[in-house]
């Protein structure tokens, strides 16, 4: 088992076009480090100044990690992490 990480189209240049990659770690921060080791450059697209970039949203099992503990959010095997750019959304 591992943690599945879904990558949005605009960041797939870092994953050789892969829609999802697998990683390990006990926190989101560790997970991002682990993935960056194989997909160099990805971390800097997600993280800046010790926090998530303003226009990047990360969801742990569909819940926004900013409300769970940010980069220190605990993660475990079997979780799904979804990365999405912030968009204007719908219902507007």
């Amino acid at each position, binding site marked *: 088992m591992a943690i599945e990480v879904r990558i949005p189209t605009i960041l797939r240049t870092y994953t050789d076009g892969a829609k999802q990659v697998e990683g390990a770690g006990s926190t989101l921060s560790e997970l991002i480090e682990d993935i960056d080791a194989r997909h160099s450059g990805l971390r800097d697209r997600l993280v800046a100044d010790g926090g998530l970039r303003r226009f990047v949203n990360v969801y742990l099992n569909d819940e926004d990690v900013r409300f769970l503990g940010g980069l220190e959010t605990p993660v475990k095997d079997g979780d799904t992490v979804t990365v999405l*750019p912030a968009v204007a959304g*719908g219902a507007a």
Partner: protein
Amino acid sequence: MRYDSLLDSVGHTPLVGLPMLSPSPEVRLWAKLEDRNPTGSVKDRAAFRMVEQAEKEGLLQPGATILEPTSGNTGISLAMGAKLRGYRLTVVMPENTSAERRQLLEMYGAKIIYSPAAGGSNEAVRVAKRLAAENPDWVMLYQYGNEANARAHYETTGPELLADLPEITHFVAGLGTTGTLMGTGRFLREHVPGVKIVAAEPRYGELVYGLRNVDEGFVPELYDESVLTTRFSVSSADALAATRELLNAEGIFAGISAGCVLHAAMALGAKAAEAGERADIALIVADGGWKYLSTGAYDGTLDQAEERLEGQLWA
């Protein structure tokens, strides 16, 4: 109920229980039916309030042109308001929105400028901002950053909910401009200790996130993270399934964003029931299903509907 005119009849929407979808008598779901507004969506509240505010500030003179980026509902509300008040309306709308919205907008006399599907509403906002700069005499109300949007909900949606459901524990609504959640959320937090304010955000197909880089992302100026308790991302599949369940179990024919919100509300309900806690969860049904019939959302199997929705802005 009697009103002087259609514009006066905004709000005062019913809050109806969802007995079949509620997990137990202690954990109840309540739907606020915003399709019962003059043009059939929650957006009437914010749109008319923004027009009123612009009039008060002297920004709108008779015959003025209003400009607005919108995926549909706000445009339809503004089109009706503009017609009755004597303004012209130009909307910037992503091309991947349903045919019904275009027809309604044209019927109300609005002019539509289409923005590219890729990039979704981000692109509509960008095009509208450019047009506003090129046409300084046009008035962009700008729902994503206009305080009157959130204030409409602070002054109407919030108090209506509190009056109908003083025991409210959770408020769940869709996240677009964030006006509904910010305004209603602030009001409820001031009056109901411990109330949870939960955002349900539609997760679209990849086309909608087709930005060139992450720095092109967009966070509405109205958004204040501290108002929310948490925020869920809901897939098209989950939103569609819940939209159909709402009709099958409770008889409510709602738009797909209602399914998005219901999906999150049911998860909160299940969690409360499991923990043995009492909960009264109010959720916003932003509009009815009529405008989405052509998307195929209600036709055939869920898989077929999901496939047809790929790449469309369904909320």
